[in-house]
């Protein structure tokens, strides 16, 4: 009955270990890649002193952050202060295992995923909601007002965007009829990518995923100009590095989830190679997000919340209702293709449309 065979436990454990090691390595080198790319965007060189092309920079950073003095604030809640970064990292690492990287049996005869849950999407939600507690507790346990403010506003924005994220995912789930990530990928293999059927949902998911990973247009947690450092103001040395790790792992996971859910996952209309396309798609989204960081400005806090509640949330709801209507009345699914195209044209128009800024007040 189950089309996805199960692995022996030792294999699952081994794959989980590989995922953790892979993610941590990817985190270390993503810091370097991001700094180098940002430097290219800003016409400077970036870190290139340690090793060839600066390739040993992550190792130097790791050694530095481990051996720096680890300060714990007098007023801090000692237990939670240590626990908070650990909660963040653990729940960030948990999400990645549910993502399939190829067809069954393509990992040396075993399955190219760690977990294959019938409720895969709900699992991802549960894990990412629990990860918010890391930020929350870090801010409170620091015993500092800046940390508390930073954690309150970043968790408020995370929760707000979680809503848009969830509702944007409803329309693919309605079309596929399953919450299993493998089923979603296989459906896309047969019918074409979900981004074509649900372009607005894809767009909203992408934006909300940026916000969930606290990337630049939404990187309020560490708005240095406003909050010193956000929720990790009082953290230093390895605990601070753990928060960096959490953020980068969220970032990598988001770049892997967007293609899985909307762009066909490991499949491609031509040249079926199990792992290649998945890694290429992940790399594309990682680069896109760094590009966005290099070009865009940060939103103000009220603008951020207004955008989340006032625009993303209603648009996601409307698109969900449209999809539900098509599915409930059993209309041909191609209607959704045309509607998606229309939505894309509207977006294009909105991007092109740039009215002259109206001058307010008099003078000059």
């Amino acid at each position, binding site marked *: 009955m189950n089309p996805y065979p199960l692995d022996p436990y030792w294999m699952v454990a081994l794959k989980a270990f590989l995922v953790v090691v892979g993610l941590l390595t990817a985190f270390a080198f993503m810091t370097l890649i991001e700094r180098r790319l940002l430097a290219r965007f800003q016409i400077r060189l970036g870190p290139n002193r340690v090793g060839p092309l600066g390739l040993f920079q992550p190792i130097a950073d790791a050694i530095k952050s481990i051996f720096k003095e680890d300060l714990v604030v007098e007023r801090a*809640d000692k237990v*939670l202060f240590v626990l908070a970064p650990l909660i963040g990292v653990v729940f960030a690492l948990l999400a990645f295992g549910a993502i399939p990287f190829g067809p069954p049996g393509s990992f040396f005869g075993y399955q190219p995923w760690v977990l294959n849950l*019938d*409720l895969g999407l*709900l*699992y991802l*939600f*549960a894990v990412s*909601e*629990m990860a*918010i*507690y890391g930020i*929350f*507790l870090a801010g*409170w346990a620091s015993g500092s007002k800046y940390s*508390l403010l930073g954690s*309150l506003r970043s*968790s*408020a924005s995370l*929760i707000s965007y979680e809503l848009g994220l969830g509702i944007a995912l409803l329309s693919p789930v309605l079309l596929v*009829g*399953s*919450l299993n990530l493998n089923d979603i990928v296989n459906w896309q293999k047969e019918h074409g990518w979900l981004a074509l059927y649900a372009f607005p949902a894809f767009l909203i998911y992408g934006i909300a995923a940026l916000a969930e990973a606290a990337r630049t247009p939404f990187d309020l947690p560490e708005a240095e100009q406003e909050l010193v450092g956000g929720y990790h103001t009082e953290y230093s040395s390895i605990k601070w590095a753990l928060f960096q790790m959490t953020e980068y792992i969220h970032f990598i996971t988001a770049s892997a989830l967007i293609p899985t859910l909307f762009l066909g996952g490991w499949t491609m209309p031509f040249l079926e190679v199990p792992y290649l396309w998945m890694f290429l798609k992940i790399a594309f989204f990682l680069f896109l997000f760094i590009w966005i960081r290099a070009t865009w400005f940060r939103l103000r806090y009220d603008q951020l919340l207004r955008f989340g509640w006032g625009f993303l949330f209603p648009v996601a709801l409307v698109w969900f209702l449209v999809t539900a209507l098509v599915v409930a009345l059993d209309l041909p699914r191609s209607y959704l293709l045309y509607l998606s195209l229309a939505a894309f044209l509207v977006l294009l128009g909105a991007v092109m449309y740039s009215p002259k800024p109206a001058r307010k007040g008099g003078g000059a």
Partner: protein
Amino acid sequence: MSPWEALALLLLLFSGVLVVTLKNAIHAALALIGNFLILAGLYVALEARFLGFIQIIVYAGAIVVLFLFVIMLLYAAQGEVGFDPLVRSRPLALLLSVGVALVLLSGLWGLNLAFTKDLQGGLPQALGPLLYGDWLLVLLAVGFLLMAATVVAVALVQPPRPLDALSPEERKEEKEVVR
């Protein structure tokens, strides 16, 4: 009772006791999260998988986050909120809680829990038609109750009209009341 069930029961009771006895409100909320997570694991073990994940997302995720928001905004400076408004009420509370537990258990006594429908391990594909078919009215009633409660809560905390929106006579009255 298998050892796992006994362990789950003990953990549930222990975290529940922590929730009501810890002096620090944040620590109590964390114990509540632990309690909810164990409960979700229990649901999954009982083949109610959808319920288990919803338990984590809605209760351990959203609702406790709201609790924490309120706690942090009210008692952010001092974690300790431990003053006891009802002195020496512990024996009474113990008696009451044991009584409630007994009442609930007696309700379970004659209940026939054999379920005729195949729920496929509690997946939403099986639960959906049931919830929105046979139990539609119950679902709507629950939803209506929750909405009514939300409206009431908002109406209760609604401040009287802001001072600058009042006419001069009204403003005078308002000040009288404040005095």
